């Protein structure tokens, strides 16, 4: 039986289980509806053919969907034990084209033993496309029981 995740049980260097997501146009559309971000750079393939906002003739996924999937790595790991995300900082490096398949991961970088209820860890986050290129990097702070 797996050991229950607690602040005490975590060590710097621990690697979190990865998340993988294929980014079809339907996945982008569903996110557009969920976030209410209908910007045509994500949603309108015809418009993207000529406007090429990122220099690409195809839609790209929302930056905040990339952030959401990076957060999913954290919430999959820590929310079942009552963890709370305090802060997240993400730099979006490369646009993610429709049709990509991305992997999202994290590693424990720091432990902050502040006191009961306040103890938190800092995670280094990354997102990578199917060609092994990083599309986003970041950090997250999360309190753990």
């Amino acid at each position, binding site marked *: 039986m797996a050991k229950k995740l607690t602040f005490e049980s975590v060590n710097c260097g621990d690697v979190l289980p990865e998340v993988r*997501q294929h980014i079809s146009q339907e*996945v982008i*559309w*569903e*996110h*557009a*509806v*969920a*976030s*209410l*971000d*209908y*910007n*045509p*750079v994500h*949603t*309108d*393939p*015809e*418009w993207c*053919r*000529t*406007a*090429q*906002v*990122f*220099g690409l003739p195809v839609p790209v996924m*929302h*930056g*905040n*969907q990339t*952030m*959401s*999937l990076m*957060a*999913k790595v954290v*919430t*999959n790991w820590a*929310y*079942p*034990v*009552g963890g*709370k*995300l*305090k*802060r*997240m*900082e*993400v*730099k*979006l490096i490369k646009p993610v084209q429709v049709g990509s398949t991305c992997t999202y991961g994290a590693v424990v970088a720091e432990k902050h033993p502040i006191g009961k209820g306040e103890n938190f860890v800092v995670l280094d986050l990354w997102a990578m496309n199917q060609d092994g290129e990083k599309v*986003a990097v*970041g950090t997250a702070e999360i309190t753990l*029981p």
Partner: protein
Amino acid sequence: MGYLEEMAKYQKTEKQKSFSADFLEGQQIEDYEFWDEIEIGKETVVPFKFEVKAEDMMAYAEGVPDANPVFYDEEYARKCGYDGLVAHPLFISQVLFFLLQKGHGSWIRTPGARNPGQIFEWHDPIRVGDILTLKNKGYDKWIKKGKYYLRYLSELYDQDGKLKVRGYITMILPKSKADVLRYVKGERALEA
């Protein structure tokens, strides 16, 4: 079938069904604020509120997609140590787009806008029944390598004035209304 009709298939909530989804529509452009008009230091409280319903929170998690039951099952969330249904951290995206449909802050809707990265701080959980108010303030804008950047502060407060989420948001925007109109026509306007 057009792209807006395709997306209509995914609309589930009352807010999703009533939201004006065509960001290229002419009248909406008239109501946007553009990079060259943004006044740094100007703070506004958006004159609309977001009443949080369970369906809003669940619809966001579904659109990530993220099936973690803490986002859908209140009883399970309580067993995990929360005081109710949990909002996905980036649920705030839905709140911001709902509240920023025109005027100060509406730059997030402009065709041609790009997202280079964000910082969010969560100060207190968003809960079902919260009535959220948004405060926005642009605090820096700059030009780098021909791109027009804006950095602004967005803060969400609940009905008791408690800070829920703070975002330090950076965007790359088209410079002017004329540049946005080029994008609306589908013209490539990378230099804009």
